[in-house]
């Protein structure tokens, strides 16, 4: 479906089942191989700053899009978001929140911290599939990246 430039998504998600859900739903967009998964906030920052295990920029390419959960081990999602958006180099990467939390304060703080979009994981197979489909079309087909 997507021609030309591959889109690299950094998926920051601690629940492995949810990683699988995202992968399966985006498979139709043939971008499964471009999803790079890290399990916690610290790993996400290490990846983006090419630290430790992610020191090699070739093996850890800069993502086009970050798909970020909020409740994460070590460094939570809102903090990761804040650090990305405060960084002159990283702040241009669109960051989409994908979380189970629909708490108002989370939504408000996510946008304050610079989230580009806020998506709540639906507790329903069909809806989750539809959400990921819409997400795929928008961010992987239509959206223009810097």
């Amino acid at each position: 479906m997507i021609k030309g430039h591959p889109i690299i998504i950094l998926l920051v998600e601690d629940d492995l089942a949810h990683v699988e859900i995202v992968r399966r739903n985006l498979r139709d967009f043939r971008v499964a191989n471009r999803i790079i998964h890290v399990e916690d906030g610290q790993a996400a920052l290490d990846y983006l700053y090419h630290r430790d295990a992610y020191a090699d920029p070739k093996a850890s390419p800069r993502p086009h899009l970050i798909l970020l959960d909020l409740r994460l081990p070590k460094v939570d999602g809102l903090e990761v978001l804040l650090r990305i958006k405060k960084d002159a180099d990283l702040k241009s990467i669109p960051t989409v929140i994908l979380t189970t939390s629909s708490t108002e304060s989370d939504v408000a703080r996510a946008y304050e911290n610079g989230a580009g979009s806020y998506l709540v994981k639906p507790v329903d197979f069909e809806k989750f599939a539809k959400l990921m489909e819409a997400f795929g079309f928008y961010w992987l087909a239509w959206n223009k990246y810097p």
Partner: protein
Amino acid sequence: MKTKDDRPGDAAPSASSPLRQGSGGQAGQALRRQAEEMARENAAQSPENLEALSSEETRHLLHELRVHQIELEMQNEELRRAQEELETARARYFDLYDLAPAGYFVLSEKGLIQEANLRAATMFGTPRGELLKSALTHLIVPEDQDIYYRHRNQFFKTGEPQVCELRLVKKDDAPFWARVEATGAQSADGAPICRVVLSDITERKRAEEEILQKTKELQEINEELTRFTYAVSHDLKSPLVTIQTFLGHLAQDLGSQKTALIEKDLGYIRNAADQMSKLLAELLELSRVGRRVNPLVEVPLQEVVNEALDLVAGRIAERGVTVKVTKEPVQLTGDRPRLVEVFQNLVDNAVKCMGDEPAPCVEIGVDEVGGETVLFVRDNGIGIDPQHQTKLFGMFEKLDHGTEGTGIGLALVKRIVDVHGGRIWVESEGPGKGTTFRLTLAETKRKPA
């Protein structure tokens, strides 16, 4: 003045002097004038001319003297009554002023105490004489000097009555809280003075502080409840999303007979369901910890630790962990099953976080830190990055994915320690350097070996 020989000329002045002392008013002066007039008239009929007086004149003189005597007696009576009234007034003044339920000062413009009632002296536990001529600032605790300074400034700036609350020094006793109310006035010689009313509000302050404390506690509980609800809603929703979604996938995969995928779907569903039931069990446990149900008992540390070790013996053996427990006699006081839970969770946590350490070891001991008895559970496992250490005791927080659990264990430990009036913190030099949990519990006693 009982005989005829009394000289009437002497009578008037002697009667007038106490009167002048007593009332001293116009009535007294008029009386004096009247008396002098009488004396002059009487002098005309001096004693040597007494025999020249006709009997008519003598009777008249005698009558005059009698009237005068009665008048004096009446005056005397009035004087006594006035004096009695004065005494009553003085007693009343003493009662109202000195024994009033509030301290009262008159301050000079410079803040020196010019007058003080007895009650004020009692409040400060010092004789009234010592208060007089000393500055009010000397009676205020150092921490509250600023309050008084602002109070005075405001008073002189606005000229309006001012009220402030501060702590005053009591001789040989703890400072007391007082409400200080100041109003302006002028002394008899026209100098500006300040009238100050002091009321002891220590009781009220204590009650206020108690309310503040209780409010703070309630706020903390409320915040914890909010965090709890948030964590629960998120952590229960996550596996639910998984179950619902993979049920959908399962239905699809069953249709297309993809056996490998079916197995995978079922695996995710099973894990999520397990996660939920574990979470629920621990939530129940956590809610129970808040209420301390068992009576406080004194129990040796080793007994608690051994019981805890029995509960995690399987895991310890499985990972081949060496456990060392101090031999030093230490007495703990607390809810025994809860104390066991503390060590059970800490040891369990240590065993889970061993990584690939070839010689895993957990040590449980006791130290003296800053005069306080501190217990510790130390391991040589994967360690914790210092920047993540604060997150550690939060509810449902997990630092590592490789480890099992729902993230309630350490929150539970912290809660138990809190309920026992203790503190818990973690020390680790970083990843790979092992971890030491240190905790205090109120009433921990080290016995000399």
